[in-house]
């Protein structure tokens, strides 16, 4: 697949239906009925600049429900920025991003587009989990408190209920016995697995991973990738920025190569990683051999 194919795949004909009043209610009910029809993420000609520097120059990307997409690209190509636009940590300048058919950060009414209020943006972020390169666990809270914080504070779950789910999640990432530890008492790999559990505790429909293993010692990378592989197997929709080519080959449904703020190539791991069509993809991948 080439860049042109990508344009076509997310072009106007398959674009998200125009916003209607019904859209909000469809989103609120979890869109479970239409699973498989509404794509998880649709980015259309997304542009973003920081001052003079145009970091995203018309990104088109579609992520289907349950799909694992790995985003590759050289440093400074805008991968992190794009990921942060999806949950509106950065505000896009042009184009649009829909998650489960809902426009992110803006709302359409009467043929015009309006900015959402901070409160509404906050609400949209509930369904989108994010895992950061530097974990960003809350150091003043224990592992359990980290995982329980948002479900109790944001979703309004009871403490007991939230603790129960948190312990299940910590068991799942293999850290149940560390529940009472503080993040700084854990290794990097353990911290990142707690961060994953913390994001999962919000029951997100989409998980964004921004180089989750880049800050880890090589021997700790495996445990985090194993946890992520586990999530992918369970059908969680994931958009992963990583330099772990092996992980991409094994787990990704699709690999997207970005450079200079544009998507240059997209396709199956075999297509993009083994026989890249774009010379820049080839040059980038040659560094990993």
């Amino acid at each position: 697949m080439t860049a042109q194919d990508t344009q076509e795949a997310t072009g106007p004909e398959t674009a998200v239906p125009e916003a209607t009043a019904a859209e909000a209610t469809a989103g609120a009910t979890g869109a479970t009925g239409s699973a498989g029809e509404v794509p998880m993420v649709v980015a259309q000609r997304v542009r973003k600049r920081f001052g003079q520097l145009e970091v995203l120059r018309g990104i088109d990307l579609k992520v289907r429900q349950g799909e694992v997409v790995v985003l590759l690209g050289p440093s400074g190509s805008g991968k992190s920025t794009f990921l942060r636009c999806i949950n509106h940590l950065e505000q896009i300048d042009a184009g649009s991003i829909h998650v489960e058919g809902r426009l992110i950060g803006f709302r359409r009414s009467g043929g015009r587009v309006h900015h959402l209020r901070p409160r509404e943006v906050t609400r949209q972020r509930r369904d989108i989990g994010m895992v950061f390169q530097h974990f960003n666990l809350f150091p003043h809270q224990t592992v359990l408190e980290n995982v329980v914080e948002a479900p109790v504070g944001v979703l309004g779950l009871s403490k007991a209920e939230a603790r129960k789910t948190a312990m299940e999640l910590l068991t799942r990432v293999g850290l149940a016995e560390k529940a009472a530890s503080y993040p700084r008492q854990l290794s990097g790999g353990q911290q990142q697995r707690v961060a994953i559990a913390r994001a999962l505790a919000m029951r997100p429909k989409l998980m964004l991973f921004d180089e989750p293993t880049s800050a880890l010692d090589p021997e700790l990378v495996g445990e985090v990738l194993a946890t992520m592989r586990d999530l992918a197997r369970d059908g969680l929709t994931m958009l992963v920025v990583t330099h772990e080519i092996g992980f991409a080959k094994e787990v990704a449904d699709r690999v997207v190569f970005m450079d200079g703020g544009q998507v240059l190539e997209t396709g199956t791991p075999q297509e993009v990683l083994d026989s890249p069509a774009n010379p820049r993809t080839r040059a980038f991948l040659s560094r990993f051999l």
Partner: protein
Amino acid sequence: MATTQPPATRDDPGKAELPPGAVPVVDVAGASPVRHPLRWLAVLLLAVLAAQLFHFLITNPHFEWSTVGAYFGAQVIGQGIATTVELTAIAMLIGIAGGVLVAVGRMSENRVLSTVCGAYVWFFRGIPVLVQLVFWYNLSALLPRISFGVPFGPEFISGHTNTLITPWLAAILGLGLNEAAYMAEIVRGGLLGVDQGQTEAAAALGMGRARILRRVVLPQAMRFIIPPTGSQVINMLKATSLVSVLALADLLYTVQSIYNRTFETIPLLIVACLWYLVMTSVLYVGQSFIERYYARGATRHAPQGFWNFALFRRRPDAPSPAADSPLAKEET
């Protein structure tokens, strides 16, 4: 010494018998410590000075230690102390609450708000507290009447400034508003000290701005805010003595009014000094406890036990973290 061996040092004759490249068997346990003759001299000098000071305190009759003893527990002194503590507490509460508001306002994206808050800090930090106190006290000369109501509209309450702004209120306003300016800078420094990634992680979890501030940023900023705030409280306790110019019966004013009658100036000042020292010492200990609370999770060590902490004992080295747990998939 064998001449065929590599040159050996005089201090280490054993080395001469060793084959080249080998190292002698040495055990550093029981090594004699380095001597510090100058340190001993300094200790001796200080001991002599301390003895002299002690002699001076005991033998100088002007201290009138019996008078000090008589007044130290007097009820009137107790009332002065109560006023001092009350002023410190209320002014500090105003200072902390106001400081948080001004700090958050200064960091706001709203330009007008941040400029106004910056101007507040500039103004109140730029004028001596004593001048501010006197100014509040004399507010009636500037504004004979104070009223609350709709701006340029009807009034709800109004009254003469002189009856509204009592010396007590002037003291609270002067000390509290001044303190808010200093606290604002301390709080702002603390908030800036918290990694931006914390705010982002919390936002990505769907937490709103107020909740992020309250649950994530402020608790971490506390580690930076508490130590300077502790010194602010101690400073405030001492600064309350300035209100004696407003004829407010704090500790200093109380002893002053006694010695103006009895001329026992020095012993009464000593009573005040001793009480100020007692209060600041209590604050110092309290501050240490609060610091310890907010330091939780800040180091890789488990929190220190109470008695180790209270007796300034060094914490025993925390055990190394247990070996990594097995992966989830290996367990299932």
